[in-house]
C-alpha cells in the first residue's frame, strides 16, 4: 500500500513547489469560508460541531502545505530540480486532451448508445495513440463490442440506451435498450 514507504528524503521534482503552493492557497481560501460554508451551533462541544472536521482538515492542509512550501523553497535554493516547471506544466496540460476525449465519450453515449459510442471511442482513441493499421482498428472494434457485451449485456450495469434507439422498430428498440 505505502507506495513511498522505505524511501529516504526525495529530491524536489519539477513543478512540486508550485503545486504545493497552489494546494496550500486553495486550502487557505476554503478555510477562510468556514463560517459561511459550515454551521457552528451554540452549546455544542467543539469536536461535535459540524464545522469541526472541515476546519481541522483544511487547517492540517494549510499547516503542512506551508511547511512543505518553505522546505521546498529551501531545497530549491540549494539545488534546482532536474527539469523545468514549464515542461512539467506542458506535460500535465497534454492530459487535458484525453480528459476531453473522455468527456466526449460521456456526452455521446446517451445519444448514440453505449455500443456505438464505445466502438467509436476505442477506434478513434487508438488511432490518436498511433495504432492506425486495419487489423488493429478491427481489433479495437471487437474489443469495444466485447466490453459492451460484458458490462451491459451480461453484468447488466446501469447505462441508459441511446436516444437514437427510439428511431428503431419496437422489438429491436427494446432489444437494443436492454442489451446495448
Amino acid at each position, binding site marked *: 500500500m*505505502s507506495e*513511498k*514507504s522505505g524511501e529516504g528524503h*526525495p529530491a524536489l*521534482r519539477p513543478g512540486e513547489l508550485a*503545486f504545493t503552493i497552489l494546494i496550500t492557497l486553495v486550502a487557505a481560501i476554503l478555510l477562510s469560508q468556514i463560517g459561511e460554508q459550515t454551521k457552528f451551533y451554540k452549546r455544542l462541544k467543539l469536536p461535535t460541531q459540524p464545522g469541526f472536521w*472541515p476546519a481541522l*482538515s483544511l487547517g492540517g492542509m494549510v499547516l503542512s502545505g506551508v511547511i512543505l512550501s518553505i522546505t521546498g523553497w529551501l531545497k530549491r535554493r540549494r539545488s534546482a530540480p532536474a527539469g523545468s516547471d514549464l515542461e512539467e506544466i506542458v506535460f500535465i496540460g497534454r492530459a487535458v486532451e484525453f480528459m476531453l476525449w473522455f468527456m466526449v465519450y460521456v456526452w455521446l453515449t446517451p445519444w448514440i448508445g453505449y455500443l456505438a459510442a464505445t466502438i467509436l471511442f476505442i477506434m478513434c482513441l487508438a488511432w490518436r495513440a498511433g495504432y492506425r493499421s486495419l487489423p488493429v482498428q478491427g481489433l479495437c472494434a471487437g474489443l469495444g463490442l466485447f466490453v459492451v457485451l460484458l*458490462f451491459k449485456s451480461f453484468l447488466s450495469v446501469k447505462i441508459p440506451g441511446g436516444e437514437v434507439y427510439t428511431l428503431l422498430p419496437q422489438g429491436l428498440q427494446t432489444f437494443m435498450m436492454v442489451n446495448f
Partner: protein
Amino acid sequence: MDLIFAALDQVLNLHVLVALLIGSIGGVIIGAIPGVGPAVAIAILLPATFSLEPIVGLTLLLGVYGSSMYGGALPAILINTPGTAVNAMTTYDGFPMTQRGEAGRALSLAYSASFFGGVFAIIALVMISPLLAAVAPMFGSREIFLAALLGLVLVVVTHRGMHLVSLMLVCFGIFINTIGLEPVRYSKRYAFDQPWLSSGIDLIVVVLGLFALSQAFLLLLERDGAPHPPKVKTGMLHGLREVLRYPKVASSSSVFGILMGIIPGVGEFLAQFFSYSFAMKTSKKPEQFGKGSPEGLIACEAANNAVPPAAMIPMLALGIPGEALTAMMLTVFHVHNVIPGPTLFQDQPDFVVALYICLLLLNIMVFVFLGLASKTLLRIVQIPTRFIGVMVLTLSFVGVYSLRNSAVDCLIAAVFGLFGLILRRLNWPIVPIILGMVLGGIMETKLRTSLPRLKEPLDLVSRPIAAVLFSLIVLALVLHFWALYRTWQKKRMG
C-alpha cells in the same frame, strides 16, 4: 463443523465459483500488465458488482485482490518492471536470476512463495477467528474512532521522507469526505449552494479518477513501449519444494505479512520491506541478497501475498479498511446492507468463513492456472503501454457512469484523474487521500456519537481496548519523532 458446512453451502454455488474463477484469473492477468494493478481493476469492476449477490460480488473483487500479486511478479522478474507497486522488491532478486538464465526457477519460486504466504495467512486467520469473534464486540464507538485514528497516524508515519505530503493528502481526503450533508445534523458543508455538491463526492468517483483515469492519462502520454521478455519454462512443484527448503524464511515472512495486513494503514510494502530485511539478517548467505537470492525472492513474495487475507480482518471485524483496496470493497458491503463491524463475526460467522474458503480456493486456482498458462501470460506483458491506456480509459467510463448515469460524476472523476496524474508525476502517494476519505468519515461519526456520552475527555481512553489503542498511537508518534530526531542528528554530525 456446522459453521464450515454452512459456509461451504454459500461457496459451492455456480455464481460464486464462476466469480472466483474470473476474479482470480482476471487478477493474475491484470497484475501481469505493468501500469494497471488491482486498484484500477477493482475501481472499474466495483459498480458492476452492485447488481450481484454480496458473496458473488465480493468474491469477484477478492479474486482480483488476492491474485494480482501473483501476476505482478511476472514482469518484475522478467523485465525488471513490477506489475503492481507491491512487487517492487521482487525485482531485487527476481531480475538478477533472469539475467543469469534462471527465469523459470525465479517464477516458480515466486509463485510457490506467494502460494505459501497466502495459504499460511488463511490458516492463521481461521485459527484466530474465534478470538476475533470474542474481542470484536468490545469495540464501541470510541475504540473504532481510535483504531481509525491509529490507521491514519500509521499512513502518515510509514511514508518515509513523505510525512508532510502524506499528512496534507490525508487531510485533503478528510476534507473531501466532509463536502455535502454532514452525518449527524444534516447541515450542508462546502456545498456552495450547488445541488451536485450537496450530495457529497462519491468515494468511487474519486477512486476511479485517482487510480484509473490518472493511470490511463499517464499511459497515453508516455512513450509507447512493448517489452520482450525471455522464454521461460516453469516447474511449480519444483518451486514449491524449493520454498519448503527455506521454511524459516517463508513462515517468518508470512507472519510479517499477516501483522502488516492486520494493522490498518500499513500494508504490503512494509511487509515486504521488513521480511526482506529480516531474511537478509538471518540468512547464511546475506551477500547474495539483491544479486538473485532465492531467500530474498521468497521473503518478498510470501510476505506480500499474506497481506490480503489479513487485511480483511480490520475491515470485517471493525469496519475499518486498512488500505485503498479494502476501502473499495467496503462499499460493496454497504451497498448490500451487510455492515462489517463487531457484530459480523457473531451474527454472520458463516459469511466470514465463506470468504476465507474463497480466499483459499483462489490461491489454489491461481497456482494451478500459473502452472499451466505462464507462457501465454508472457504475451500480456508485451501489450503496448498506450494501448493499455486506451482500454483503461474506456473501462473507466463504465465504472463512473454506471454509478448514477451522471455526466457531472464523470467530470469530477476526470478532474481527479488530472489531479492523480500530477501526484504520480511528483511521486506523491495516492493512498492517503482514499484512507483520509474513508477513515475520516468513520472517525467523525464515531467521535460525534460517543462524545455526548463522555463526562470528561479522558473517558475516551478509559476502557482497556481504547487505552491500548491510544498507547499505540502515542508510541507510533514517539517512535516517529525519535527517528526524525536521529536522522537530523546524523545529518548534523555529517
